[in-house]
């Protein structure tokens, strides 16, 4: 795109661009740092060093501290988002990948890739409370809105495991598509959506009876199924729309939740890996694992606005406003 074209695009999008605010915190696996991108200026404003191989990040339920899971350091770096300073480190077990908090914020549920376990840890001390054996290479972790269940994917077993949080017991294994990755839950808590990286699809699970009720095939004109490798997924607060990063297909997909139909696709960077939505739900931040950048997508226009270079092998973004 020429410079003139970019300027024109920005002008056209001005009404939405003004609404974009806050900062995207982007973890990058290879340089042990978090890159902060100001969403209004659409530029990098700071780079914070953190623990080794930072990947999954999540705000604690208080919204004040960001937990950054580091696969190489085996800890979570806890960063105060106001001061942007590390305030502590919590052990997370061997090779932690993804995690979620219990609804009261007192526990962390983390997938331990090497062991094939879901660890239930005390969020303050990192003390291991329970370890639940599950399939190899567990990945996505999600706590149900009522806090009673935690869902985990196993990439190798192609299963979603349902674990009871109170008893730390495995309740059910649900067979989904190949290499399941990440979750989104509808706001009413009734449907669990999971991306299947090697299935080019999203499985929809009823949380009532833990059965797969539907599978949404992801398609893109000109791309073959094997090039569509979805990972990241998020849903709007009203539960009307889901956004899925399509991996090697280099696009992000918009899916209408009610009809389960793919409505829009937007070209972003290489191996689009993760999606994050801002609070106003006007902008998507797409993390591109193989082009070392993030793409800001205007939701209303279903258009990429700008790509911003971040650290090496970016993993995901958390938007803090």
């Amino acid at each position, binding site marked *: 795109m020429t410079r003139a074209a970019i300027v024109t695009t920005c002008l056209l999008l001005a009404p939405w661009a003004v609404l974009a605010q806050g900062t995207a915190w982007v973890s990058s696996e290879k340089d042990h740092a978090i890159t902060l991108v100001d969403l209004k200026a659409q530029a990098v404003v700071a780079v914070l060093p953190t623990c080794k191989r930072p990947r999954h990040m999540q705000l604690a339920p208080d919204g004040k501290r960001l937990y950054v899971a580091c696969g190489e350091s085996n800890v979570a770096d806890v960063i105060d988002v106001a001061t942007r300073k590390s305030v502590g480190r919590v052990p997370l077990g061997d*090779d932690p990948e993804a995690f979620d908090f219990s609804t009261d914020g007192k526990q962390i549920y983390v997938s331990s*890739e*090497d062991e*094939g376990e879901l660890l239930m840890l005390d969020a303050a001390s990192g003390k291991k409370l329970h370890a639940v*054996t*599950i*399939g*190899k*290479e567990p990945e996505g972790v999600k706590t149900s809105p009522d806090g009673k269940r935690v869902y985990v994917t*196993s*990439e*190798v*077993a*192609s*299963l979603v495991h349902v674990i009871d949080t109170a008893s730390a*017991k*495995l309740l059910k*294994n649900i067979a989904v598509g*190949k*290499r399941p990755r990440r979750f989104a839950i509808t706001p009413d808590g009734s449907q669990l959506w999971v991306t299947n990286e*090697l*299935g080019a699809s999203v499985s929809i699970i009823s949380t009532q009876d833990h059965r797969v009720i539907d599978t949404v095939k992801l398609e893109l004109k000109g791309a*073959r199924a*094997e090039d569509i*490798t979805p990972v990241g997924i998020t849903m709007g607060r009203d539960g009307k729309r889901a956004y899925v990063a399509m991996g*090697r297909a280099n696009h992000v997909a918009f899916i209408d939740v009610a009809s389960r139909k793919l409505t829009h696709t937007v070209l972003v960077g290489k191996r689009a890996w993760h999606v994050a939505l801002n609070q106003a739900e006007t902008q998507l931040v797409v993390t591109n694992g193989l082009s070392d950048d993030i793409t800001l997508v205007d939701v209303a226009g279903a258009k990429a606005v700008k790509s911003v270079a971040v650290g090496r092998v970016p993993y995901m973004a958390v938007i803090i406003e």
Partner: protein
Amino acid sequence: MKLAMRSWCLVAAVLLGAGTAWAATTPVKVALLLRVDDPRLERNRVERAYLGHPGGPASDALQMAFKDAAFELDAAGLALALDVLPVADPASARAAAQRADQSGAVALVTDLDAAATLAVADAVQRPVLNVGAADDRLREGDCRARLWHMLPSERMRSDALAQALVARRWTQLLLLVGPSETDALRSATALASIKRYGLKLVASKPFKLSADPRERDLANPLLLTGNASYDAVWVVDSDGEFARGLPYRTALPRPVVGDAGLVALAWHAQFERYGAPQVSRRFAKATGRAMTAQDWAAWIAGKALVAAAIAAKGKPAAAFEQALAGGAVDGSKGTAMGFRPWDGQLRQPLLLSDGVGVVGSAPADGVLHPKNTLDTLGADAPEKLCKARS
């Protein structure tokens, strides 16, 4: 190396909660046939660690695949039992295969040479999973309807290299070919790939390992690579010793590819993407050695067997074979992989390695195919080279 005459290994994990009882789990039997005193695994050869050569017995990675799947097998109320059968020659391979068949093995895995692999395939009416023979003839003229190949064929490997050379526009090639029969076959395959991808052969020369001054034209890298202009030297050396000494000893400052320099492989322990490091790490933890391409082939055979066993649980024997043939496996190479119906070969991306790391992968960017880009590596359907499957 010596192997126990026969070792049964039962892989079934601890039971989680209530459900199927131990006694109710009848193990699904799988037999692995490998070479007695495998010459490829002699200490001296393993220590050299030539690229593309095996690093240990196929049982290592097969066991790992079953262990990896302990949770799923258990959830399905299944267990897999592996029977390891060392054999000396095609005749004993045939006898061992028949014994395994009679004892109820649902599938046989072979890490044997081409002749013994065929002896096994012809002895039983069961699926045979080849994890050790890359010979093109097993996928072409000597293919079998129930023979499945996990290891990429020689042609897939040479196509992968040819694609890499085209992508870099290193089109003028000097081919050096070793003295063995295998080298002759593999150089014909290399020439076919060179032709398929429009590369140019500057010259093809035989080489020989020798310190005899009278044979220096055949043995000296400088003399072999002098008096010619080329972009790269492609060396075909199934033994490995000559090729190991070729890079940096060519007359012109040009890269070496083939069996040293840049090598196309099914796997390399340094591969960093698609969850590969976890697989290599688990393997190194379990065996104390780096995971090779042959190990990957054995591991993916194990994964295919597990998937078929779970899919065909409680169904007649034919269902197992159907599930195996039609299934897709995840080999941590970034894409789901299925078998080519026309020759039983597992389609897969290949890695290009210099031995230190992974330099690239094939299919190369920009290579196109009307149906599946992975089918640009190896024999494609329209060639109709395997009559037994047409």
